[in-house]
């Protein structure tokens, strides 16, 4: 089946089997391998993407279901080539990763959280990432990274928001 997707702001038209998950479509057909294939049955959270702005597991959706939707992957969160988003930057600074396998999904989950809640408590951060498994860090620095990103994003000048 042919479907149209808006991925990271660019339009794509891809031919998929109904059984192709959104995850496999992103990785294998669009070459966006930053979305990681972990358990492929909805347990690990490594394949999290933003689907119309909401964090979802791309292994638990078939690509055909995403027809016409907007998807943001880790490749789409940077403000420009060679730059990092405030969340990515905070993960580097606090050593919020080790092997890096869970990291893209952690960062997208954090972006989704901070878009709705600019000042999350520690409990809210923990709750938000509770569906994302990390087997290296013990989570402490990930929580720290998201708190740091939140603080910086609150302090940043955001003229587009001030105008609202």
């Amino acid at each position, binding site marked *: 089946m042919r479907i149209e997707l808006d991925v990271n702001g660019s339009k794509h038209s891809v031919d998929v089997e*109904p*059984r192709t*998950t959104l995850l496999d479509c992103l990785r294998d057909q669009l070459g966006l391998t930053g979305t990681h294939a972990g358990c*492929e049955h909805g347990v690990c959270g490594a394949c999290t993407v933003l689907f119309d702005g909401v964090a979802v597991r791309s292994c*638990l959706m078939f690509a055909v*279901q995403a027809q016409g939707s907007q998807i943001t992957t880790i490749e789409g969160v940077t403000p420009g080539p060679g730059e990092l988003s405030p969340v990515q930057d905070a993960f580097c600074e606090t050593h919020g990763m080790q092997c890096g396998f869970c990291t893209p999904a952690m960062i997208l989950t954090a972006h989704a959280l901070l878009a709705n809640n600019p000042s999350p408590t520690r409990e809210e951060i923990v709750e938000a990432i509770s569906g994302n498994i990390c087997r290296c860090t013990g989570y402490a620095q990930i929580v720290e990274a998201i708190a740091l990103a939140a603080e910086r994003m609150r302090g940043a000048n955001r003229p587009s928001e001030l105008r609202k």
Partner: protein
Amino acid sequence: MKAAPFEYSRPADIDEACALLAADESARVIAGGQTLVPMMAMRLARPTRLIDINRIAALSYIRTEGDSVAVGATTRQCLVERDALIATSVPLLARAIPNIGHVATRARGTVGGSLANADPAAEIALTAITLDATLEYRADGASEAIPAREFFIGPMITALPAGAILSGVRFPIWQGKVGTGFHEINARRSDFAFVSAAAQVELGDDGKVKRIAIGVGAATDFPMRLDSAEQQLTGTALDDAAVRASLREALADIEALSDLHASADYRRRVAIDLAARAVADARLQAQGKTHAH
């Protein structure tokens, strides 16, 4: 971990979906897909056709209907979680929802999908049984309704007729001094519950119970109501010892599930504790001593 091939249909309305379902007994309806897709990935489910009802706009709603709040089958769990009408009118559901899966699964998972899937540990099923909700479905071009207590008949088995599709659920609104409690125990946050318990209480002006509903989930093939305890506790002040005694009696002879994670004895024992906590929370909230969270 890839699903077997299947045909995909995206019907425009529920009657078209019912017709597709009736035409192929190996077809399955997909709503949020948060249970079905993993089952397909593990090839525990191999539907020949998926009937995607996600884009049928008429199936997604939260609205007052008489003395009930009606929730459409494809309403996302995350929407129910933050809905103001649910918070004020079906507070037990608002309390139960955060226990389901994780943020990313509640973003896709639906109310009707959870009910139709009928997992013994499902929080929405427990809430529906505890509140005597009414489930609505569409079959052969007609709308039908069935009480939650008659809908669940076994683990992952419901009374929904072949070719029928769940369209929504109505939760009765309780008026007055109402409080709720919901507790569950699992190995990790938001994993499948080993045991869950829900309680809703309405207190009269004298501080005594006018009405009480207590349910236990995950302990048996499908969520159960503790009718005998409800009868014993109506008209009382919900003294902790009396609550425990009634719960112990109500749960003494249940045929509890037993698996690697939790034995039948453990489930019976923990069910008493969790139900006692749920009742205590509900009482305190109805007395105005705590706030809903």
